[in-house]
């Protein structure tokens, strides 16, 4: 499974090469292992196939739909996650939303900056407001949507 996935990851990487090329040259010495996928529940997962670390957050679309985020509570490093288990909660004026992990693995880092500055989720949902980093084999990633698929999914959802 792992080798199969690695191949597909490389393939996905090539597909998005125009987008990834800047990073490739500046940071990862010509490797294209960082792939970004999206879930139907409006999360993003950025997976580095080299370090096997998945960085997870909610999408800009989700942050905008939630409105003003006033509180973020995240599980702590060391917490074991299975796909679908809660990795944290995002609270806005309107509602409390659990964030369920799209992957299985172990949390290696939680973004503590969000505790003091929950507003980062609205300001930079897919950048500074990443939520957790998870060490994972990433076997669940293949079933998720790529950027194009997610765009289409959002449009469908709008109707």
């Amino acid at each position, binding site marked *: 499974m792992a080798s199969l996935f690695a191949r597909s990851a490389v393939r996905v990487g090539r597909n998005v090469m125009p987008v990834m090329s800047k990073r490739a040259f500046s940071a990862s010495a010509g490797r294209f292992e960082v792939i970004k996928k999206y879930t139907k*529940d409006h999360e993003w997962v950025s997976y580095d196939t080299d370090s096997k670390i998945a960085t997870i957050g909610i999408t800009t679309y*989700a942050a905008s739909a939630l409105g003003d985020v006033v509180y973020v509570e995240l599980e702590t490093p060391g917490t074991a996650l299975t796909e679908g288990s809660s990795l944290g909660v995002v609270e806005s*004026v309107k509602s409390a939303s659990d964030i369920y992990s799209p992957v299985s693995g172990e949390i290696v880092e939680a973004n503590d900056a969000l505790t003091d500055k929950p507003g980062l989720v609205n300001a930079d949902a897919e950048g500074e407001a990443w939520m957790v980093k998870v060490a994972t084999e990433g076997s669940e990633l293949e079933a998720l949507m790529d950027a194009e698929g997610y765009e289409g999914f959002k449009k469908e959802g709008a109707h």
Partner: protein
Amino acid sequence: MSLRTAASRQSRLLLNSASRQSNNGLLRGSLNAMRTKTTLTALSSSRSNNAITTSPASANAIRSFSTTPRLGQALRRTPLYNLHLEKGAKMVPYAGWSMPVLYDGQSMTEAHNFVREKAGLFDVSHMRQHVFEGPGAVEFLETITPTDVTSIPAHESKLSAFLLPMTGGIVDDCIITRLTPDLFYIVTNAGRDAEDTAYLAEQLKTLNIPQCRHHIYPNRGLLALQGPHAAAILAEAMTKLDTLQHHTSQETSESALKNLKFGQSLFLQKDRSIWGFESSIIISRGGYTGEDGFEISLPGELTEQYANTILETGTPDRVRLIGLGPRDSLRLEAGMCLYGEDLDDTKTPVDASLNFIIPKNRRQSTGYHGHQVINAQLAKSAPFKKRVGIVVEGPAPARKGTQILGPGDDVIGVVTSGIPSPTLGKNIAMGYLDSEFVDLGKNGTDVGLSVRGKRREGKIVKMPFVPHKYYKGE
């Protein structure tokens, strides 16, 4: 699976979470101590074409009418539906209606604060508008509610509740406005329409009080203009609206509003030669935000014109359309209940800490539904719950369903509504203490809140959380 609304755990994403929000009555809060307004309008009971009428004889006919859609039935639209779309509203299904939750370019917090600082215009046309009329109307209303209907002066309103016989459970909360000695205008919740309709038909039939007729006006509009600038904007808008100008011809619209205190209403008739509810405009001072403001009941066909005139008069600097989302946070800060969250038919007005809706002269009465239970609860000889306000310390809001904990982590109650308060910057909640623990329901008592398994500290506080700013005259 992932982003889910934790409170309900049903809809997959927050994108729909607003549909849980809001709606509800006007003029909440302490509607007591209001002065008599003497401009009693003699209103004859001309039967209108569009009203749906219930009487003991036709009690069953009303059952076929309901706005609660069955599966596949289209959502109902208010007279302002097109205006909402024009203004970029995010529309959500609410109680069978397509309603605006937030408008383009607004955040919940900004829209909320705008109402507290300037003014907001709300479309609440989904709410149900009723008339009860005839010599038997007082007796009927004094049987199904705990209100001293006899003593309501003409053109004044009271918060009230329809009660279940025997148990005194609240079927719905409502506002009763007396228009003439024998004619009452009542507004109920859209979300309770099916239940109210069945209940009222049953009560009219069972009680069989002669000469009490019930009409529902499904085509009327209802606007709420709320906030510190509401009075100035409405006075100015009224001078531009022919109908209103004509009917306050005795006084300027400005002085008419100046004389209109919280809980009072102006009844305006388009054509004085044709008396009737159908064509009337009722401006009531009050609302569901705790701010000074008005609710304007009017014929459906006038609703868009009035809304536009108010918006143009106020300009976006002073008044904006506001959706159901901020309406919910505003009412919670004002300590007001939302039926379905904070009220249900297992709770009496005493459980709900709404004792003020039961005047002293009715507390011995055996004439109203549920008096057996309610009078005993008032005398503390029967168990009762207690609705309390809680300020939650720390950053995590306590939402609906959160357990309220005593000193030893024992469960003493449950939260029914909770939000991060945009006005206070603190997390606030209302909830019920179980009957064994009502003694803990004193202001300043420390309680715990079990938020996702962690105990968070909180304190019981007096409601409203944000002081009411009702207009009591100059």
